[in-house]
């Protein structure tokens, strides 16, 4: 993986929501690299900052601090602070697929207008060229050309998600953030959409940031997986390594909570005590320590750095050793 070309770097990305005097760190100091053509799964429970991370990267919301560096032919550009001209040029490189296929399509526009909207702002194509581009992309995502003049209310969830995918693809982006792109769909449709995403990745050499809470889906589609807890990245590793030997106690607990399709398989469920802490008032030191089985004194005082503990494995934990030993 390391020989591959890095295409996107997220550095110390932080997002703070303020409400009166309370501050909520929805995202703190998240850093990771993304290589060209890979799929990074981002997992974690509700409220851990997955969606905030995805939206901050595409500039759907403004991050409080940190950088998103894109590697272009012209060198490295901080996407979050790009000038207007740079944005015009590189906006198209990072696009997004939304979770809710109902809320993410403007019900007052035809499918054609929805899909072609990004072109309207980012290209100087003529009407005819736009029409051709839309028809081509519609075909690629499996939408009937004849349906382009219809309104979104005419479509089912799966078809709507295809429209959303077509919209994100029309600018020929390099990176696509899929924010729970299949979570709102039926299982059978999920499979269709995932296959479609995989086919499109092969065809266009796309890079995915695949945000999901469905571990089985992430395991299937991802090359690497980033685990988040309370606004922080706690572990990043190659998928199989992560699923076989998680090095962070939270990852371990999270994976053990995933249901198994075979009812006879016995799962060594690691039960965590307590609730997810209030992000407005996170625990001292490591945020996970009140619920951790391996905690030491150090955990209560200092937040562990997110560092490479084993080749290609980044973990934010003081006691990975103990965690690993416990599994063996």
């Amino acid at each position, binding site marked *: 993986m390391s020989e591959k070309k890095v295409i996107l770097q997220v550095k110390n990305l932080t997002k703070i929501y303020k409400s009166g005097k309370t501050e909520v760190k929805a995202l703190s100091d998240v850093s990771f690299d993304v290589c060209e053509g890979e799929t990074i799964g981002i997992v974690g429970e509700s409220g851990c900052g997955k969606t905030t991370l995805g*939206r901050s990267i*595409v*500039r*759907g*919301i403004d991050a409080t601090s940190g950088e998103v560096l894109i590697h272009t032919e012209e060198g490295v550009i901080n996407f979050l602070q790009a000038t207007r001209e740079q*944005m*015009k040029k590189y*906006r*198209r490189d990072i*696009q*997004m697929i*939304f*979770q*809710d296929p109902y*809320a*993410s*399509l*403007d*019900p*007052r526009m*035809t499918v054609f207008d929805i899909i072609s*909207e*990004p072109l309207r*702002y*980012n290209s100087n194509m003529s009407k005819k060229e736009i029409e051709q581009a839309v028809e081509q992309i519609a075909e690629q995502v499996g939408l009937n050309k004849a*349906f382009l*003049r*219809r*309104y979104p*209310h*005419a479509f089912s969830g799966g078809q709507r998600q295809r429209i*959303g995918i077509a*919209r994100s693809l029309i*600018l020929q982006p390099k990176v696509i953030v899929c924010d729970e792109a299949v979570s709102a769909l039926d299982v059978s449709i999920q499979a269709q959409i995932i296959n479609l995403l995989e086919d499109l990745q092969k065809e266009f050499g796309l890079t995915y940031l695949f945000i999901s809470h469905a571990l089985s889906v992430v395991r299937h589609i991802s090359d690497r997986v980033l685990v988040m807890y309370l606004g922080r990245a706690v572990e990043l590793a190659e998928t199989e390594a992560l699923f076989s030997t998680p090095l962070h106690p939270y990852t371990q607990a999270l994976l053990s909570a995933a249901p198994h399709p075979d009812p006879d398989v016995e799962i060594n469920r690691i039960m965590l005590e307590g609730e997810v802490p209030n992000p407005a008032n996170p625990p001292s030191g490591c945020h996970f320590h009140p619920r951790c089985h391996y905690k030491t004194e150090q955990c209560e005082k200092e937040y562990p750095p997110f560092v490479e503990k084993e080749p290609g494995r980044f973990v934010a934990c003081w006691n990975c050793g103990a965690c690993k030993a416990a599994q063996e």
Partner: protein
Amino acid sequence: MALFKKKNKERDDSYYYASQWQLMYQKFRKHKLAMASAVLLIVFYTIAIFGNFVAPQGTEQFSGEYVNCGPTPIHFFHEGEWEGPFVYGLKRDRDPVTYMNIFVEDTEKICHIDFFAEGDKGGEYKILGLIPCNIHLFQAEGDGQVFLFGTDGMGRDLFSRVVLGAQISLFIPVVGMILTVALGLLMGSLAGYFGGWVDNVIQRLIEVVRSFPNVPLWMALSAALPATLKPAQVFMLMTIILSLISWPNLARTVRSQFFSIKKEDFIMAARISGAPASAIVLRHMIPSFLSYIIVNMTLTIPSLIVGETTLSFLGLGLRSPATSWGVLLQETNKLETIMFYGWKLIPMIFVFLAVLAFNFLGDGLRDAADPYK
């Protein structure tokens, strides 16, 4: 199963190609009461626009002879023989019990009703204020009189005055509504778009305006109008006063729409597509709450109609001989009037009908406003 089948049948192909407005219209059409109200309002407004033609008398005309005359019945048969529409002549008489002046029909004298009657009897007017004309929809021949709704204390035909009054009572609210909407949209968008302290200031202002009791405020503002103003100027100022008080509701609606739509996924999708702020507001936000604004506009009108009527009734708005429904009701502020001259309450029926129709119309529009829910 039968239930589902029926639903599917209705959704033929055109449903899939229907835009927001087409869907809205389809839904609106099913609201029978709203459709009826729309028709009634169209009739009202058409009559008001051509009021001078429909009314047999102009605003300036009066007669000392026929004071407080009840509605004249229209007959078709004279002594069992078909005569076409006609009225009998009127004879003044005295009630033997109360000694009040009353009018009785003089069955000797037949005055036919002429339709599209030309002549000076009804006075001259200008069609739409431009073309001079003296044709009226109907008129009794000779010195006969048709008082469909009776006459008032100055011998003026009440029907004519109701029709002419509609010009003011129905159009002031529309002008006022336009002003209200402009003000409400502006304030609401400012609050919704900028948020923060701008929002705070506007919110507090709205609360202050809303907490004033309406009638005393109207009285104070109207008292400030000099008595020497021409009816047209009073008309304009009344409109402004009414809309200065009624904008907060709309501003609130617009503001809340801004807030709720700002967070919709499709707005974020547009931002990620690189849409500039102007395109987001114009292409996505305004179209998505335009229908709500239209509903709100429709529901603003009744309160303005009532407002105008109230002001005029209290003698704070227009004054005779200029006429509006409120001015006409001024005469009914005495118990005596209601007892002896019941027909003078007829203008109230029209206020009532217009307000009701606008409310039903607004109701129907509101039900149809969001065809996606």
